[in-house]
C-alpha cells in the first residue's frame, strides 16, 4: 500500500494505492490521524484501492469520529469498485460524505 499527501488550499488530499487489510490499515490510520489536525478538510481518494476489508472500514470510521471531535471535515471521493462493494455490504456509505471527483469533494467543482 502506498500513501501520499498533498496540500490543496486549506485541504489535505490523501491518495491511497493498493490493498487495505489487517496488515496495512494501521499505517493508513496513523497517517490519517497525523494529517487530520493540520487541515481544515481531509479528502481521501479511494480510487486506487484494489482491496479493503472491515479493518480498513473501521479505520475510516475512526478517522471520521476523530474529525468530528476536532471539528474538521473528512470526505471520501473516487470510490473504486472494490470499495463500493464493501461499503454496500456493510451499509456504511451513509455515515460518510462521498463524492465522485476531487473537485466535488473539495467544493471547487
Amino acid at each position, binding site marked *: 500500500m502506498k500513501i501520499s499527501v498533498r496540500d490543496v488550499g486549506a485541504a489535505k488530499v490523501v491518495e491511497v494505492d493498493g490493498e487495505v*487489510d489487517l496488515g496495512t490499515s494501521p499505517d493508513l490510520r496513523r497517517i490519517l490521524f497525523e494529517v487530520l489536525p493540520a487541515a481544515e478538510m481531509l479528502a481521501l481518494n479511494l480510487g486506487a484501492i484494489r*482491496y479493503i*476489508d*472491515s479493518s480498513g472500514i473501521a479505520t475510516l470510521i475512526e478517522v471520521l469520529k476523530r474529525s468530528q471531535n476536532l471539528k474538521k471535515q473528512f470526505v471520501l471521493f473516487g470510490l473504486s469498485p472494490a470499495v463500493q*462493494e464493501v461499503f454496500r*455490504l*456493510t*451499509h456504511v456509505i451513509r455515515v460518510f460524505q462521498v463524492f465522485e471527483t476531487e473537485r466535488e469533494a473539495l467544493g471547487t467543482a
Partner: protein
Amino acid sequence: MSDAIGGENPRRLQIKFSVPSDPRYLCVVRGAIGSLAAVIGWDEPECRAIALAVDEALTNVIRHAYHNRTDALMELECRESADGLEITLLDNGDAPDRSKICAREIGCDQPGGLGTHIIKKVMDKVSYEESPEGNRFVASKRLRKSS
C-alpha cells in the same frame, strides 16, 4: 483402479493452506480464493466478495483467537463442491465469543465488528464450532447458475 487419492474427488479442486497468523500472508490467500471462485463460475464482484469473506474469517482468528500473535497457525481448506464452494478454517486459539458474532448494528458509525456481518452476507451457510482439533469455522456458498 480409482484415480482418487485419500478418497477425494479427482475432478474437483481442493486447496489446503497452513497459514501463519501473520497478516502479510492474507493477500496470498485472497488471490488463491479469488481465482478458485472464478474457475468455479462466479463473476468478478462475487469472487472479490468470497475472497473478502475468507479474509475476514482469517482476520477474526488472528485478532480474536490469537490476539495478534504472528507465530500461530491456521489451517484453511477450500473445496470445490458439486454446487459451489466449501471453506473450513481451523485454529487453536481462544474460542469465539458467540455473543459478539454479528452483534453490532450495521450501517452505523461504530468501528469494529463488521467482519462477521460480511461473512454472513456473502456466504450461504456459516457455522462456528468447537472441536477436539480446535475452533472450526465452516462456510459454504452455492453457485446459482443463470438459466
